[in-house]
């Protein structure tokens, strides 16, 4: 069964139909790309999928479960985690704690247990520390665990955001322009990381990207959005050759 199945998803802001009749089906383990010119509605699709906006029409199914109209928190618990186009880390908290916030709902203990420092506090905190360090190691961030997240260099901040999203143990990971602001070397490294995340965590990934080298290099299938509507969908190589896509990006 498809991990993500979206049917006739639409949203209007006043008279503007920002996303119109959007359909997408993503199979488990796929690396899927969502591309399109600026203002096409890509990030709006992400915001619809994660419950930031409520759709005007349409159904979103995650692993068979209808999550349409649920809150961001419920959708994260159901299994969608995301990163942001403009990095949103917990800047004044250590790198380790950023990941531990991601683990929040998976390693529970009560507030009172925390205040009174009952044995369960030490046990669960130790589990969280170990799990968080495991995830940080994957992204080669374990040495910076005690740094404040805001003090990390840009590329590492992007990685930490992915690490934090993965800590919530999602079924589907949404990456919003992960390569934005990166130089070609960093982009190459990021491509390897994304592929590694897919294989290592057995993850399904949907990403928005403008860097065609990255998209062509790692995405298996693509959906192209233009003016809120799906322009074309299919295998990456074929989509990128489509004259309509070239026109949408470069003009007549």
């Amino acid at each position: 069964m498809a991990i993500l199945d979206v049917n006739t998803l639409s949203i209007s802001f006043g008279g503007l139909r920002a996303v119109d009749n959007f359909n997408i089906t993503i199979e488990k383990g796929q690396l899927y790309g969502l591309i399109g010119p600026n203002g096409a509605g890509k990030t709006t699709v992400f915001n619809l999928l994660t419950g930031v906006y409520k759709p005007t029409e349409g159904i979103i199914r995650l692993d068979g479960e209808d999550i349409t109209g649920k809150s961001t928190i419920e959708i994260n618990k159901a299994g969608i985690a995301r990163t942001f186009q403009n990095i949103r880390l917990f800047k004044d908290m250590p790198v380790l704690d950023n990941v531990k916030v991601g683990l929040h709902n998976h390693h529970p203990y009560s507030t009172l247990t925390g205040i009174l420092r009952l044995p369960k506090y030490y046990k669960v905190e130790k589990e969280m520390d170990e799990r968080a360090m495991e995830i940080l190691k994957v992204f080669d961030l374990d040495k910076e665990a005690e740094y404040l997240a805001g003090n990390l260099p840009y590329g590492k901040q992007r990685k930490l955001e992915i690490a934090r999203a993965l800590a919530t143990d999602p079924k589907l990971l949404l990456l919003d322009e992960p390569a934005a602001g990166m130089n070609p070397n960093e982009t190459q490294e990021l491509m390897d990381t994304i592929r590694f995340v897919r294989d290592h965590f057995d993850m399904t990934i949907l990403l928005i990207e403008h860097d065609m080298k990255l998209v062509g290099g790692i995405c298996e299938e693509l959906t192209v959005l233009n003016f809120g509507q799906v322009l074309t969908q299919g295998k990456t190589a074929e989509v990128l050759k489509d004259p309509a896509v070239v026109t949408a990006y470069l003009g007549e």
Partner: protein
Amino acid sequence: MKKNMNKTSKNNFITYAMVVVIFAVVQTLSSTGNLSNLLKGLLVPLCVYTIAAVSLNLVVGFSGELSLGHAGFMCVGAYSSALFSNVVGDALPSVPRLILAILIGAAVAGVFGILIGIPVLRLRGDYLAIVTLAFGEIIKNLINVLYVGVDENGIHVATSSAGLNLEAGGKQIMKGALGISGTSTLYKDIKPYLFLIGIILVLITLFVVQNLVHSRSGRAIMSTRDNRIAAESVGINITSYKLLAFTVSAALAGVAGVLYAHNLSMLKVSIFDYNLSIMILVYVVLGGIGNLRGSIIATIILYALPELLRGFSTYRMLIYAIVLIAMMLFNWAPAARNWRSRIVEKIKGTRPKKEAA
């Protein structure tokens, strides 16, 4: 990982130790007769304001919301506990009575925290500050017109002295703007130990706030401060954690109020105005937002200073203002912060070398 754990518990320990050392120094000074009566009178209020500042730091520093209604919660704690003490009177020995009074003050202030927090925490920044300020004033003005008396028929509540309709032999406890009198006389036997009790309450406050901050819930609270949208995206319920911080802070402010009320023979509502809220906020901001030890130090310096400077009479407030500006610069000016972090790096940088040698 382990190092990280040790670092926070070491940090917490330093804060507790600091409070204990201050207590020991003050006790020695006082027993050797080096402390004037004026200064002795400042000790318990100092504990009151320390508790208030540390608890306000939970909201301002860790939850990232500007609250100007802290005096309102102190007021609720003070009045509810003083009322309890006076109603119970000599039916209970003073120690258990005081413990119950503290618990009641904290609980009532906590409930007010929840009630006010639910509507107010939907707002942010300046709006939240203004609404909490208004709530503080509402609480103050309500208590200002409240009369409570007790007779054989039970407790009477009214908005005027005559409205109480007390039987002969009944006693008026709360007299509107005149407040509650005689609370401290109920505790004559433990009056000399009130500073010790205050210090214990400061330690309890620190225990609660420090342990809360360094726990799962504390991280959730700080994540909502750093980035609301990201916190929601990883499944953190922002509203409930903001409310948790607000409620715990209100309950602890209530404890500060209890201590304040039981130290005085006259409890008047006029002290709990917005000036008090702002004074506590000044302690928090100057001590460093999110820095509990800083809150304590700032409270001690800024509270004791105007009294210690009485000798300078006319220049007193001038010096106070200069100290305020100097502390603000030391804590927040970019150049001063860089200088401080360089010093810290220097100290930290030399440490591994020593270990290697």
